[in-house]
């Protein structure tokens, strides 16, 4: 790499870090929200069931 | 309609003057901040002369920006803004009147204080006249662009800090050509193109910024 590796590799690594970090943050948020949605729907379904039962 | 707008400007001026030293505080910020630079950078006159235009312009833009929330915030909070939106006068004209009032209370005092600070910063004499003309063209534009930022952050959490984040990047062209005009005068390289561009920015900001601020005010109603 002609001795400039000290600048080429970090730039690619940083680029990769930012992109992968972005993707990871997106996916984590998506999964967390989907879990919350499922939980919320479950609680509403239960409360509806109680209402119908009572 | 013009009677209504004149009344609006007069009311805003009366509010600013009666509500105490808004205008004075803005000028005080301007003077104190510029005086900090020699303390920070050192008293060498040639260094100060070199950076005088830049320091004065940056501080003037910051001073304008600090007083931006006064344009709409109080009226938004006490319900006056709703009535202004409902007034038969077009909202764009109301925005223009409010920006004019804001400029008279902040822009004009800055221009009056600028020569004093130019002396403080040891700016060469050739630059004084151009500095005033450039600020005369630049500060209204900064009030106009600032009005858009102020309208956008109505009702936002931490609106004050947010306005600076939105508005300062948009002040970059103003800063560049404002300082270039003064440097042009000092170095004798010619002032005309920079002042013309400052004038063009003002001409563009008058309709566009007013329209954008009015649109922002309308969408601020929930």
């Amino acid at each position, binding site marked *: 790499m002609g001795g400039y590796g000290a600048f080429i590799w970090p730039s*690619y690594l940083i680029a990769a870090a*930012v*992109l992968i970090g972005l993707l990871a943050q997106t996916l984590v948020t998506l999964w967390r929200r989907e879990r919350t949605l499922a939980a919320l*729907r479950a609680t509403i379904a239960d409360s509806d069931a109680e209402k119908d039962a009572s | 309609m013009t009677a209504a707008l004149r009344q609006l400007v007069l009311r805003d001026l009366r509010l600013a003057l009666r509500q105490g030293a808004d205008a004075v505080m803005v000028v005080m910020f301007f003077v104190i901040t510029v005086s900090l630079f020699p303390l920070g950078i050192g008293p060498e006159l040639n260094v100060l002369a070199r950076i005088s235009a830049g320091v004065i312009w940056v501080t003037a833009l910051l001073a304008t920006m600090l007083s931006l929330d006064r344009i709409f915030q109080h009226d938004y909070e006490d319900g006056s803004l709703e009535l202004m939106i409902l007034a038969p006068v077009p909202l764009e004209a109301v925005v223009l009147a409010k920006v004019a009032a804001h400029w008279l209370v902040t822009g004009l005092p800055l221009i009056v204080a600028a020569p004093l600070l130019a002396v403080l910063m040891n700016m060469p004499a050739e630059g004084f006249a151009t500095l005033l003309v450039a600020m005369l063209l630049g500060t209204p534009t900064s009030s106009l662009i600032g009005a858009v930022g102020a309208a956008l952050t109505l009702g936002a959490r931490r609106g004050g800090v*947010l306005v600076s984040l*939105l508005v300062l990047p948009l002040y*970059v*062209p103003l800063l*560049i050509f404002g300082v270039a005009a003064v440097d042009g005068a000092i170095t004798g390289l010619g002032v005309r193109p920079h002042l013309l561009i400052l004038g063009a920015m003002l001409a563009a900001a008058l309709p566009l910024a007013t329209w954008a601020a009015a649109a922002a005010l309308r969408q*601020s109603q929930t």
Partner: protein
Amino acid sequence: MQRFANPTRFMRMANAVLPWCAALTVVLIAAGLYLGLVRSPADYQQGETVRIMYVHVPSAWMALFIYASIAMASATALIWKHPLADLIARASAPVGAGFTLICLITGSLWGKPMWGTWWVWDARLTSVLILFFLYLGYIALNNAFDDPTRGARAAAVLALVGAVNLPIIKFSVDWWNTLHQPASLTRLDAPAIHSSMLWPLLAMAVGFTLFYVTVLIFRLRSEIVAAKIRNLRLVQIGG
């Protein structure tokens, strides 16, 4: 009314495209890296450091391209009040900011060997820096309101104001650069593009674009789920 154009059809279509998009992204970026790092020759003048260009230049294009798409989505949202346009603009901003950050960092890494300083006030780097501030302003304004629709509308106006100001900022920064052009500063120009250098550049550019589309689809799904959660909470209170 256009307003009721069935957005769920869009999401079904997007989910269908997603795997292809992701796969193609990986392939293209891998090809770009291979061509850029291994096959293409070093530049006669800048030597090996020119390889940073294969990341720096595409990310600069992406930063501008994404800001333009945010401005278009914002215009659509303001004019036709389509909820999806708001979401696309809101979901794109962090990706655009990410690419702008990459562009700035790789730009300074590229400048370091040549001028010995980490940051050079080159005209284009400065414009990208200001674009980065516009992105931060957009994201901050979008999240500054309790009511997401309020934030979306305010940010949409800001995106349009920013889009109008970008060329003016670019023009004034270039003018400013020529005013203060010290003789020694060589412009951070991409060298004459030899075809062997063109392919990795294009591969990376298209790869980044597809990456943006992939992440956008994931973020759109995430925003829609968040909206459903907010709605269910309202129904819970209202119910």
